[in-house]
């Protein structure tokens, strides 16, 4: 069979970069294959994607060596438009890629550009809307949909083209765990229906492997590190070496001292052999874990009474009736479906938007304080770093808050350098911010808030778009801060983060606080998991698979063991 995609000794260097981003890569993909393109951020995996859809060299200019053939066409001699009939791309941020005002219009966009007549266009749109169960939403604005629905609209918008290659750029990045799983299921279903070649760019291996994948191509530093079947790759240590997280259950097996080479199939918990030796080893390992000492601190810091906010009269399920007390030293994760009110809660606490109820900090009513005054005590790192950054240089950005508080320059310098070191940004201190990646910008905004030393730090999805290495750095650092007494609240979709780092979880659904408990209790309550659109971890499945006495205890043991490693 003739491969549909071929890279031959391919190198690429962006005009704006000093070093090549891709170096002498070779691989090919056959029609109908499903490929996971994995690697840490900055590895070059997205650049490979941009070659496949023709953005390189048509939009991003640079120097190309070697050849890249997509469906027999050399990308250097093919226009973006011609290639778009071959490769359909579903971009990472579905929110900002919507062009049409309504769902129907957005699905029809490429057909409009092909100048198809209206009747035929409506027919095609209706067909795919029906297929993906979007018919009821055709007249809605895409921005008002849930994260999973948005992903469906984006998918329908490219399926109308019926191109042979579907390219997904980090499809899980902005989805809650349940919606993420559904997306992976859907990709699988669609591929079987339309017989397309599917390429998924993602660093969340475990989530993608929930459905069968033919091969994983692992990229690091612009080179192909591995190009093999998932099962073979999971038997090696290549993933962790480049800073990509391998599935949790695989790590648990390793921790329990099980030789992975003796396990024939590692691709899912279901496929693991039901052997009594493995069960025994897991049980012995579990019994050896000790619980870390829990510090007893119960000083109430932030008290929320009947907190809520409604953006407009038409808003369904606005945030309402939130009652809770945040204690000094808490490490809280805020989880729940997209649009459940998590970000709204943060913004209400910080005074960005009005509040229906009462919030008090150390018994002082916050209603009397301006945003600036609240920020002396509560630091908020927003989801989108571009909305926070206002200076050109990294140093100035981190120093801004201190300068506005009239701290003298010497102290500022000392404090800023210290913060930059903590955030791993010290080597870049004299760089312009425009030269940084999204993940690095995010770290700059975290540094800018840290420099002000607030009592409470609220972070809105701090690890979105970060690979595992940076993720670990940021989170370990936050844990350190927490141990020194800073109260931390994190909005997240990452179940690992919630389990591993936070001590307390707030779950939201449809504008209501539905649970305030420990992460373990939340994730093991079937009812809450479904309501808050979360997902059980594979550790739990592993424990069930081997009939361990108490699966919850096993999950807990694993998390305790992770914590021990850090300390």
């Amino acid at each position, binding site marked *: 069979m003739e491969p549909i995609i071929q890279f031959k000794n391919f190198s690429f260097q962006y005009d704006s970069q000093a070093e090549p981003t891709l170096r002498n890569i070779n691989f090919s993909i056959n029609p109908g294959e499903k490929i996971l393109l994995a690697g840490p951020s900055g590895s070059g995996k997205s650049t490979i994607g941009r070659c496949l*859809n023709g953005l390189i060299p048509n*939009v991003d200019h640079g120097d190309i060596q070697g050849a890249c053939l997509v469906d027999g066409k050399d990308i250097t001699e093919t226009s*973006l*438009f011609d290639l*778009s009939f071959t490769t359909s*791309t579903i*971009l990472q*941020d579905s929110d*900002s*890629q919507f*062009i*049409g*005002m*309504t769902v*129907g*219009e957005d699905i*029809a*966009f*490429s*057909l*409009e*550009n*092909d*100048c*198809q*007549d*209206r009747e035929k*266009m*409506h027919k095609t*749109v209706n067909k795919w809307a029906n297929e993906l169960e979007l018919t009821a939403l055709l007249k809605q604005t895409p921005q008002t949909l849930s994260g999973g629905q948005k992903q469906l609209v984006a998918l329908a*918008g*490219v399926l109308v083209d019926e191109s042979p290659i579907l390219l997904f750029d980090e499809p899980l990045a902005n989805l809650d765990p349940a919606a993420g799983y559904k997306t992976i299921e859907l990709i699988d279903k669609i591929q079987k229906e339309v017989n397309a070649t599917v390429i998924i760019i993602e660093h969340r291996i475990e989530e993608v492997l929930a459905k069968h994948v033919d091969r994983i191509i692992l990229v690091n530093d612009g080179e192909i590190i591995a190009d093999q079947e998932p099962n073979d790759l999971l038997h090696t240590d290549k993933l962790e070496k480049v800073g990509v997280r391998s599935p949790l259950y695989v790590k648990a097996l390793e921790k329990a001292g099980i030789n992975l080479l003796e396990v024939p199939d590692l691709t899912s918990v279901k496929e693991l052999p039901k052997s009594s030796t493995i069960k025994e080893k897991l049980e012995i390992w579990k019994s050896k874990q000790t619980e870390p000492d829990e510090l007893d601190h119960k000083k109430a810091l932030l008290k929320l009474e009947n907190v809520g906010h409604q*953006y*407009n009269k038409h808003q369904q399920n606005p945030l309402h009736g939130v009652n809770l007390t945040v204690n000094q030293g808490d490490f809280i994760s805020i989880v729940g479906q997209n649009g459940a009110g998590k970000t709204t809660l943060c*913004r209400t606490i*910080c005074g*960005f*938007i*009005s509040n229906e109820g009462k919030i008090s900090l150390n018994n002082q009513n916050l209603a009397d304080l*301006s*945003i*600036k*005054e*609240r*920020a002396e005590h509560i*630091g*908020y790192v*927003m989801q*989108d770093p*571009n*909305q*926070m*950054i*206002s200076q050109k240089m990294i140093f100035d950005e981190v120093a*801004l*808050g201190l300068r*506005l*508080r009239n701290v003298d320059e010497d102290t500022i310098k000392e404090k800023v350098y210290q913060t930059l070191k903590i955030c791993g940004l010290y080597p870049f201190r004299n760089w312009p911010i425009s030269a940084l990646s999204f993940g690095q910008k995010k770290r700059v905004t975290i540094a*800018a808030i840290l420099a*002000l030393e607030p009592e409470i730090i609220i972070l809105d999805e701090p690890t979105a778009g970060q690979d595992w290495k940076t993720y670990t750095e940021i989170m370990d650092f936050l844990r350190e801060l927490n141990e020194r007494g800073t109260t931390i609240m994190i909005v997240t979709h990452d179940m690992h983060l919630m389990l591993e780092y936070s001590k307390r979880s707030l779950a939201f659904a449809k504008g209501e606080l539905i649970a305030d408990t420990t992460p373990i209790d939340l994730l093991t309550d079937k009812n809450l998991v479904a309501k808050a659109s979360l997902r059980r971890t594979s550790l739990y499945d592993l424990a069930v698979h081997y009939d361990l006495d108490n699966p919850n205890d096993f999950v807990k043991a694993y998390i305790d063991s992770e914590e021990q490693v850090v300390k």
Partner: protein
Amino acid sequence: MQEDDKILGYQPGNTFIHRLNATTKLIFLLLVSIACMVTYDTRFLVVICVFSLICLKLAGIKWRQISFIVKFIIVFAIINLIAVFIFQPTYGQELYGSKNVLISAGYFTVTKEELFYLLNLVLKYICSVPLVLLFLLTTNPSQFASSLNKIGVSYKISYAVSLALRYIPTIQTDYWAISAAQQARGNELSKKASLGKRIKGTLNIVIPLIFSSIERIDIISTAMQLRRFGSKKKRSWYVYKPFTTKDYFVTAMAIFLVIIVVILWHINAGRFFNPFK
């Protein structure tokens, strides 16, 4: 503080005016505005004024949606009127060929004729501003683009205009988010700071606003190219609505109003209606 109601942009609705074809509304807006610009027949202008205001009411537009922009226009209009008066206080009497002095003050002598002329200018504002607002608030930007394209504007420009219209609300939301972020960093912009400080602080919001807008434009233009926008000389429109009876009726009404202006021109022997004769 951010309030969704204050956002100036298309608000879906189901009134007669919302249901009209975008092309119809555009034609009506253009023809009637031009007619009002050309004529100085006070009787005609008064009728159109009343008509525009009734239409605003009919479309269910609330005062708070448009209050900001209207206040802005009022200030601008007053400056304009004062300037017109200062540059040539005698323009009215030259136009109408008579002189009825109200206040005698040398160069700045106020005549009935001048005031009448200024009244006509005010009426022109009241005729066209509500029509423009009506158009912006009741027209789906996509349909607007398709109607611009229909009357001969290139589809790339049409689409650019519609995207710009659609992004007004997004940019407003961005502005509030960035402003809040700046305040949280210690840039006091609330009423607790002096006016000078607030103005200076607001300037700090502009840079991130520009950056986040550029980023947005970059992403959307990539998304559009990947889906072949601009690959052909022509494109079709998913939302295009064919004309219905009410559209023909409204278009005919616009043409009728233009004809009236032409007739009035003949009756008045010029653009001006002269009550001083």
